[in-house]
């Protein structure tokens, strides 16, 4: 009758007369408190999720708005015909590329006049807008003389400052006159934009290309490091999944319970918490200095990341093996299956979704890892020869996406900052693709049962 937690006032009269039946409509103090606590807790939960979502949205907006310009490039498109005579004349001069530049300027002037715009400009303005176009034009015609006498459309990449002006990064207010660009040049740029000679196009070379030099942000691409990351992920997947799963099966199902296995267990948990830079220096010492594997190679990066991923996979695999009900093992052993048959026929398939989840978390971690790659030199600048030369295999020097992004972010030219954001978009798309693949795989495994 008396409840210790109830205030004494309500329990007092009960002994005197027969208890009055309690009305269910009257909510007592304690119930009200409990309900309030529950509501409060739910509100905290919704608040926490709301904060999480808010930051996610902010992050997504920031990444997309900052990164999108990396996917466009500004080009200057000029169409002109080079006659055989002009070609011969230019080739006969001492400063050949200068001659071609004059031809280019002439053509540009002609195109503007056609549109009814008569704007005077000089060679130095053009050089500040598209660099020195003479060399490219000369090598184009030298490579294929049959193009002489025919109208050819040249698409030249605008300089990074002009690109920034088109993308809104550089404005008349924030720029200072320099040898890269002067305020007066922008008048010509405006006119060229109006005449559709300067245009913004999708920058395929950012997705497919390799990194460029520090003074050419327009030519920088993440393609090579996407391949590098892909090779590394292959190494990580094919090493850490079988090794990790085999180790967990042994530890979980076969190993005797003693001090030694306890020690191993503790060490695996500790390994999962070791900072990644430690694995980096270990990889440098063991794989490169001791085993003499090539520097900057995806194989070495993959090996280092495998070491890092193994504990994650082992821990999650053991957890999912543990979660398989022991009755399934009994059932298999009861019909005369050997221990290994019981594990491989019954326990492992049931644990598979969990193992795959752990693997994908491990791989995602490895994909975003930068610090160990810096130590084994996977910030390699992959220049010419791509895609045939440098990044064709596991042993060729390459970079990885996060390392590439880091390199860009560390460079002085603000245009690279844009590239870094763009690189992050590519990295996230890569990650998303990987996760979707894992989810599809997991579905397939689950459906088999």
């Amino acid at each position: 009758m008396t409840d210790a937690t109830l205030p004494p006032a309500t329990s007092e009269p009960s002994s005197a007369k027969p208890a009055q039946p309690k009305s269910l409509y009257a909510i007592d103090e304690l119930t009200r408190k409990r309900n309030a606590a529950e509501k409060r807790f739910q509100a905290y939960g919704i608040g926490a999720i709301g904060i999480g979502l808010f930051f996610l949205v902010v992050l997504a907006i920031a990444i997309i708005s900052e990164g999108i310009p990396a996917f466009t490039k500004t080009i200057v498109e000029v169409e002109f015909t080079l006659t055989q005579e002009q070609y011969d004349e230019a080739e006969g001069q001492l400063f050949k590329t200068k001659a071609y530049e004059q031809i280019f300027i002439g053509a540009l002037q002609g195109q503007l006049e056609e549109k009814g715009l008569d704007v005077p400009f000089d060679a130095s303005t053009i050089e500040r807008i598209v660099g020195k176009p003479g060399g490219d034009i000369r090598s184009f015609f030298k490579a294929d003389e049959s193009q002489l006498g025919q109208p050819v459309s040249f698409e030249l990449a605008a300089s990074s400052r002009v690109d920034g002006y088109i993308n809104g990064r550089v404005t008349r207010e924030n720029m200072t006159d320099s040898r890269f660009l002067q305020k007066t040049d922008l008048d010509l740029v405006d006119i060229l934009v109006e005449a559709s000679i300067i245009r913004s196009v999708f920058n395929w070379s950012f997705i497919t290309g390799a990194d460029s030099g520090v003074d050419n942000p327009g030519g920088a691409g993440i393609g090579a490091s996407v391949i590098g990351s892909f090779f590394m992920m292959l190494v990580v997947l094919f090493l850490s999944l079988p090794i990790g799963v085999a180790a967990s099966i042994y530890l979980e199902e076969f190993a005797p319970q003693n001090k030694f296995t306890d020690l191993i267990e503790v060490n695996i948990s500790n390994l999962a918490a070791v900072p990644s830079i430690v694995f980096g220096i270990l990889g440098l010492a063991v794989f490169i200095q001791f085993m003499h594997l090539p520097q900057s190679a995806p194989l070495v990066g993959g090996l280092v990341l495998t070491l890092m991923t193994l504990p994650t996979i082992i821990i999650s695999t053991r957890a999912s093996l543990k979660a398989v009900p022991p009755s399934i093992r009994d059932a298999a052993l009861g019909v005369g299956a050997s221990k290994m048959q019981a594990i491989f026929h019954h326990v492992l398939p049931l644990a598979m979704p969990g193992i795959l989840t752990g693997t994908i978390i491990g791989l995602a971690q490895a994909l975003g890892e930068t610090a160990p790659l810096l130590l084994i030199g996977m910030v390699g600048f992959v220049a010419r020869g791509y895609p045939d030369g440098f990044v064709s295999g596991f042993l060729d020097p390459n970079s990885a996406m996060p390392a590439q992004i880091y390199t860009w972010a560390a460079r002085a030219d603000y245009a690279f900052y844009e590239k870094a954001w763009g690189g992050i978009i590519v990295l996230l798309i890569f990650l998303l693709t990987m996760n979707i693949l894992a989810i599809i795989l997991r579905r397939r495994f689950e459906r088999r049962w």
Partner: protein
Amino acid sequence: MNEMPNIEQAIKMTDSKISANKVQVYYGDNQAIKDVDIEIQPRSVTAFIGPSGCGKSTFLRTINRMNDTIDICRVEGSIKIDGEDIYDPKVDPVQLRAKVGMVFQKPNPFPKSIYDNIAYGPRIHGLAKNKSELDDIVSSSLQKAGLWEEVKNRLDEPGTGMSGGQQQRLCIARAIAVSPEVILMDEPCSALDPIATAKVEELIDELRENYTIVIVTHSMQQAARVSQRTAFFHLGILVEEGPTQDIFTNPKDKRTQDYITGRFG
């Protein structure tokens, strides 16, 4: 084929199918079973009864060496099936378990189709040469377990989707499919309702014709209904063993009497 007469002789020599002699079972330092001697008759049902924790399940699991899976468990003494010591180093527990099948307390079908549940044992033991032989084993096992009529049109549906009673009979069919000689049942009806229990008991009674059955049960009525012989365990000791009729109507030991009249347990 040449060895057949020898084996038959061996069986004749000892009248019983299973004979246990001074069996001790330890879990680490704790002794769970003390000095158990028992002879189990072939083609009959022997029930183990006793209060919780008396060691009857532990003893049952020593008969097909399921206790091997527990690291700290240790068995001493001898358990012979057809005169062969199953704890002999020459004996492979995997082979033993094909001969001594087991049905567990909670129905534990594999999360696979009904067909695959039954076919798994014959597959790993290579009992069927081809698909049609396997089909025969599956259908005959299900028939023996009295489940055929209920499931013959949905063999490819998951076994886990059936009712509890059906699942338990599926587990019995799975045990039968590897043609064991002995079937151990560890409280097979404790998770079932009375109607499902009645069906399983009926099945056990039919199976007696072909198999030696040992059943652990908490229900004395069940022991009385299905078994020919009953063994009463208490605190790890086999107190009394004899024909079921005698144990229930005329127990020799005071403890047995107290237990079956409900004074403890």
